[in-house]
């Protein structure tokens, strides 16, 4: 890439970050953003450029326009279960974990807090700094049924309310009892969204299928912990891991505009692992 081209790419990235709320979602795909984690024996690889990436969209090689790393501020959306099943020690551990994640933010980052019992509450909208989210976290108490699916969707939408790079961390016991939205509907949104969802659950006899799927489709990860005392270190790990992800973008060429697009993100370096979302959904 020439210097002029690189400058043009950075300018384009700034324009995306400053997009207004009037812009439509990408029902027609103009540019695709893919968050990718590249690791070598578990350690993040941090020195890659656009030429190091190959992206196949439905099997068709694409021209990578931009790869950014650590330049784009982070939007952290904490989406936390505050239902009956999260009470006592677990609630205290969850609060501490939320504070740990917020403490890992930098000055230019933004934070939001969404909680859900049967009611979904946007307790702190996406704002610069973490003060509002911290206060809201301290005030939140647990009671009621669980609208997990509605809550994850609302958190995803909070992430999409800003054109920046969004990480949603969800904590729940994994069981939905009160949502209006269905899991397939929210998975459909996850396939269209740039928000990366990480989820944390405490192990139970029930498989957290929805959280497994939503994290997989968004390119995030599901953590199943033995005990809630491990929440704080897990939340910190997630923020740290997310900071070491590449934001890769390209303009699709040679593929149809609608439907499911299978993505294959590769790095031209031996022995590295790449984790990115498996595809995206375009059109209605």
């Amino acid at each position, binding site marked *: 890439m020439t210097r002029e081209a690189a400058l043009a790419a950075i300018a384009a990235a700034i324009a995306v970050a400053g997009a207004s*709320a009037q812009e439509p979602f*990408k*029902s027609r795909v103009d540019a695709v953003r893919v968050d990718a984690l590249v690791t070598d024996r578990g350690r993040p690889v941090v020195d890659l450029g656009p030429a190091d990436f190959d992206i196949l969209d439905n099997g068709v090689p694409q021209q990578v326009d931009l790869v950014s790393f650590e330049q784009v501020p982070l939007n952290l959306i904490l989406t936390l279960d505050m239902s009956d099943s999260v009470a006592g020690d677990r609630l205290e551990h969850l609060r501490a974990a939320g504070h740990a994640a917020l403490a890992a933010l930098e000055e230019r980052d933004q934070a939001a807090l969404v909680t859900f019992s049967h009611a979904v509450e946007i307790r702190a909208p996406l704002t610069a700094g973490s003060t509002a989210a911290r206060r809201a976290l301290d005030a939140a108490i647990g009671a009621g049924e669980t609208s997990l699916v*509605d809550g994850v969707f609302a958190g995803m939408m909070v992430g999409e*309310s800003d054109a920046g790079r969004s990480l949603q961390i969800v904590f729940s*016991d994994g069981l*939905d009892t009160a949502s*209006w939205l269905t899991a397939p509907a929210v998975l*459909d949104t996850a396939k269209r969204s740039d928000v990366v969802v990480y989820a944390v659950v405490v192990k139970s006899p*029930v498989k957290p299928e929805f959280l497994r799927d939503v994290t997989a489709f968004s390119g995030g990860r599901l953590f199943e912990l033995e005990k809630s005392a491990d929440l704080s270190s897990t939340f910190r790990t997630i923020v740290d891991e997310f900071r070491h992800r590449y934001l890769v973008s390209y303009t699709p060429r040679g593929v149809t505009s609608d439907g499911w697009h299978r993505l294959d993100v590769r790095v031209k370096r031996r022995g590295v692992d790449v984790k990115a979302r498996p595809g995206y959904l375009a059109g209605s």
Partner: protein
Amino acid sequence: MISVLAFTLLLAQAPAGPAPTGALSRIEHVERWVDAVIRHRPGTVDAAAAEVGSWSNPELQALWVDVYAVAELLYHPRMVSFTLAGRNRRREAIRYSTDEFRRLKASVDHAREVLGPEGVLRRGALLHTDIAMNIAYVPERVGTSPSLAPERVTAQIGDGRTLEVGSTAIHWETARMLVDHGPRDTFARDWYRATAAWMQQTENDDIDHIDHAVELFPDDRSLLFLDGCMHEVLASPRIQSSVASMRLPPGFLMNVGSARAELKTAEHALRQSTARGGGGEPEWYLHYGRVLDLLGEHDAAIAELSHASGALDGDELEYIADLFLGAAHEGAGHWDAARAAYQAAAERAPSAQSPIVALMQLARRRGDRRGALTQLAALRDRDAFERDDPWWSYAVSQARNAGVLLEVLWHPFQSGAQR
């Protein structure tokens, strides 16, 4: 909220349990029971109900066997031997000593003389119904009951999890056995209608109860409706996730199917409730339409929901109909109709959360960023404490008349019209 799911154990090879213990002998229990049936005022928890309600489950299981003999003797006074099919399906004899049988027969003769055979059965059923509805039992270990008596296994459910599985008092089973010994008449039908509605209203879901009622009254559209609603509930995430987290003792299986299997069962019952001779309550079409939509039959769902819409009993059900119509239209790809239906729901219930997330999701799906963010702002501005979403109580809405049905059931006994 804690709810209860009662169910049958399949493939159960129940071991023989300990003999009943207590201060009273076996026949003394029967004598006290007959006395309680005569004294009890239906619809109350009086001294008679309190006495029988204080008996342990082993005592009640022993009583169940003897009450079965009582019910037989009421109609067949010369009967001298009784058999029962145990849970291993073999018929076994109910054995009495000469003195026990003499006292048993004397009690039955006395009860028949005071109340008549049907009066004993009905009042006995109402006694156990009142106890079942009002007196709580601590669940015990599963699989310790004698093989001739039924075992009632319940799961306590909270927030989508099974909190406890245990064996509880068999008052519903005793009441059911007494009703089933009598004629299949208006009382029996009304008893099943009222008790099934009460179970659904209070989330004491009992799979066998309503399924059995429909077996007895296959043409009763109200019972078919409640049966359909029961299976609709069993298909819900709340029950499905609870069942998935349930740990049963070895050798036991549960008779709750997958979400789709339960929806198919619900669809069958609701189709019958709405199909027989036309007409029927608009609410039946509401549930039928919802189940059809969940099964992916969107166009059929729209037809049924449209039939219900505008004729339902109150704003809350009309709100639910709008919400369901929105989902069915969305499933069918009718975006504008879906949005209109969700907006209608939002206008009917301004403090409800579900239409907001539905509109937000629809806008997001359609690439309407402004519309989605408008709904996000609406959600953010709602005070959670002021939210009242009828969707959250939809699972029990069909049984909101349970109190009226019970009053109708009790009235003849309280007014003296029935002995």
